């Protein structure tokens, strides 16, 4: 299978599947200066902005990977094609996580330009891990339930639980650890993100 075909799939994804989601992500990022401070922040406050706000765009952009085949008939039609549907999901997912990386990069660059003091590389990867985890959790729940709303609901509740209970119950999967200057949890979140995303795609592909 040629790279061209992969690129073709991603082009269709960009053109037809996620433009609205991209706009929502951009709107959320662009509106953030109205909601919170994004200049002259110390490391702790910068971590709060990245982990508790910017990471949420993962929920917007990753779960819709399965959305084009929401309709069962379309799913069956796609399943009958030569190309494995799991490969299509993987390409879309990779495309979306690259876009997330670019959005986060742009946002972190803006924070540094605005005089925020924080360890850039460390916070970039920490926030990215959190973003991927929230998104992959949604993707897995969508894949398991065949319901996009559940795909949004579960990661949002995870977020609420983290805000409400801190790390008491979530332990190594606590998503706001950078505020406490700890990056260990991010490694576990990244690992969980990979497991959840792979499991979600596997579940969804089986349903075809």
């Amino acid at each position, binding site marked *: 299978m040629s790279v061209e075909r992969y690129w073709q799939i991603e082009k269709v994804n960009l053109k037809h599947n996620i433009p609205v989601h991209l706009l929502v992500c951009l709107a959320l990022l662009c509106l953030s200066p109205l909601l919170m401070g994004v200049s002259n922040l110390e490391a702790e406050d910068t971590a709060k902005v990245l982990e508790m706000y910017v990471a949420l765009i993962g929920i917007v952009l990753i779960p819709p990977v399965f959305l084009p085949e929401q309709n069962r008939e379309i799913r069956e039609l796609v399943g009958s094609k030569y190309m494995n549907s799991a490969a299509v999901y993987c390409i879309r997912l990779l495309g979306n996580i690259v876009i997330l990386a670019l959005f986060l990069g742009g946002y972190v660059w803006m924070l540094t330009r605005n005089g925020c003091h924080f360890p850039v590389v460390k916070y970039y990867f920490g926030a990215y891990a959190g973003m991927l985890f929230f998104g992959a959790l949604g993707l897995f729940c969508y894949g398991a339930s065949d319901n996009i709303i*559940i795909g*949004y609901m579960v990661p949002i509740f995870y977020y609420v*639980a983290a805000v*409400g209970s801190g790390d008491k119950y979530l332990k190594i999967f606590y998503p706001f650890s950078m505020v406490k200057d700890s990056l260990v949890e991010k490694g576990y979140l990244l690992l969980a993100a990979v497991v959840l995303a792979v499991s979600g795609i596997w579940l969804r592909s089986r349903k075809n």
Partner: protein
Amino acid sequence: MFGQLFLKECRETARSLIYWILVGIMLFFFATQLGETEIAREPEKGQESYGMHQSEDPDVIMRNTLGTLADEYYRESYTTYPIGFAKTVKPDKKEQKRIGEILEEATGLDQGEIKKTMEEYYGSVTGLVAEMPMEPVDGLTYKRFKELMKEVDELLGGGSHYGEQYLAANGIEPMTYEDAIKEYHLLVEKDGLSGGYARLFSDYMVIILGILPVFLATTREMRDRRAKMQELIYTRRAKSGTIVVSRYLSMIVMTLLPLFLLSFLPLAECIKVAASDGIRIDHLAYAKYILGWLLPTVMIVTAVGMFLTDLTDTAAAVLVQGVWWFVSVFTGVQGIDGGAYGWNLIPRHNTELNYKGFHDGFVQLVSNRVLYVSFAIIIVALTVGIYSQKRRGRLNVRGKILADRKSKS
């Protein structure tokens, strides 16, 4: 017809996966946030700590607030919390000069003395300078103090420590035995013990109810389209109002049902303690708070979910409600101890105590809740209108009816 549809919708809701996830989340949230709540007993003399409370003493509030202001003025950097996230505000020279004048008027110290005080403080103490109190000038009335602080808050763009709504939070101090006894008696006599805990229950549960019902509503409204039943239902004899309202009410009732059941657990605890301590308890407190505090939030969130889903045929309601929830939760953090309810969708009162705050803010709270109930009714009426239009083949952005009409024209 209405009764039949209502019961049918309740059964549909009870059979849906999302409803049981919603119930599971409520259970989890209740267990983790309120599961370890112990019912208060009368404080005893000699306890190590009696907790913290918001002092109503204007002198305490003025001292603490002026200490914070002096510190921020000295650093020329002010922290505000427009929605709970820190925002650093650096005022321009003119604004900074005016804040300096206000500080001079409130403390009676000139610029040099303020600077010297802060330098001495930074030189001698490590820790939060915000805890450093600064005495107000003799003769400064609380009314004038509030006017001055309001001006500072306006200069900083709002959401600062100096806004009228947040001044009380600056008066936070450790409770003495006498304070603790006073609070306890208010809890027992005015709140009938269970009232304070019903408020705490509502405070926690309203956080998740500010978002959860939208998932239920969105799923329900999208289900007909996914099952390709939309057009079939459109042709039925039932009025649009009957269909939409029965659906809406069923979701409200089914959302409230687990709340009522959950409330029996803390109520039973209250009854047990009240029986052993000889306290007269308010048995209906939880029911009153669920209907008065939580129901309006459930109503408006469900209405928004139905309206946007019917209008757009997408899950856009989740995004809209998600943003509204996010802003409401983080804005509410500054009024977390109760009393400052404002117009927030998620009114907070994170303590079984502070009856006085609740009492003083009661009219505002009632206005807040009535407003959201009114909005919910209006939005449901609009949803009925949209549903009715769609039955006639209009407003179908992506449906087959529009496609059919186009192909025929």
